[in-house]
């Protein structure tokens, strides 16, 4: 039995310890917002937070998150702590109409949240470098970059 927090809720799962966290989230816990893309940490579609840090859940054995706090896209809004339905990044994503097929977007959002968590006012290079490991096959990169800047601005209270 492996215990950890998911989106601030205690969970216990009965699964082999080497089961990738991705499948635990999707198939044990029904949190299907986190996606399976490449399975080898190349595309970033499976990105979640483990103790606040971005992690590729497809290469994260569930045993390694025992006792940790995991956040998925379904719990992203709550991390903003302002009681709103959308995290500033999600609001910005809608504002610029960033997603196309949308399959990579949960991972993009979680990666962007990790970026803003460390660098609240990122430069263009910070965004490009921090997001380079998240593939968008529709290549909606222009809008993703724009949305991150917009969210940073909103989070910083419009100050630049």
């Amino acid at each position: 039995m492996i215990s950890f927090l998911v989106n601030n809720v205690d969970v216990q799962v009965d699964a082999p310890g080497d089961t990738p966290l991705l499948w635990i989230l999707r198939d044990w816990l029904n949190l299907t917002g986190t996606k399976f893309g490449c399975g080898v940490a190349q595309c970033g579609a499976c990105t979640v937070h483990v103790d606040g840090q971005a992690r590729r859940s497809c290469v994260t054995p569930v045993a390694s998150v025992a006792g940790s706090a995991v956040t998925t896209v379904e719990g992203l809004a709550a991390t903003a702590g302002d009681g709103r339905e959308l995290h500033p990044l999600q609001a910005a994503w809608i504002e610029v109409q960033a997603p196309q097929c949308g399959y990579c977007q949960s991972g993009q959002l979680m990666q962007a949240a990790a970026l803003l968590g460390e660098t609240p006012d990122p430069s263009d290079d910070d965004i490009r470098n921090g997001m380079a490991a998240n593939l968008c096959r529709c290549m909606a990169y222009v809008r993703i970059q724009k949305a991150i800047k917009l969210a940073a601005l909103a989070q910083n209270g419009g100050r630049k």
Partner: protein
Amino acid sequence: MRVAILTAAAALSTTVALAAEADLRRSESFDAIQNRIERSVALFGEMAKVITHPRCMNCHPADNIPRQGDDQRLHRPPMIRGGEASFGPSGLHCNSCHGSENLAVVGHDRDIPGHDPWQLAPANMGWIGLSVHEICVQLKDPARNGNRSLADISKHLATDGLVGWGWHLGKGREAAPGTQEILGELTQAWIKTGAACPK
């Protein structure tokens, strides 16, 4: 879990060691060289087989971009050193993908490398593009080796876990020559003989 892996590695060590000596000579095999400086240079030449191997070089880039694989291609997905911690750019740390152990993944011929910590060597220790001579000089220069004494260097090469990963690297890539133990012996012998650098 990690303990179990180390035990398994130890159990294999006799057979591995026999093969290892074939591609990395032990320090005593240089005893025949009379001239101390020449012996030292030869010892470093042997150490360089390990140091210049992709397992070491890939994380000692001079351009802040890690390399990957036996062909030392640019790291995919794109990755950079990031800040001084050499641990990746903002929000995307090495351990976003690299866990504490090598990880087998289904349908893929290479494990995802893992070790705790997993990071690049410091920026001033970039080796890619340097000659063996230049690497040697740099290794001895406290300003460019993380302010290490020769004893520290020896300890680092002989015992550091991330250096040791070069021989405990999982499926799909070639191990560094020899063993970490032989590298440690070579380093000690090199230092004892005056830590001379090849020209």
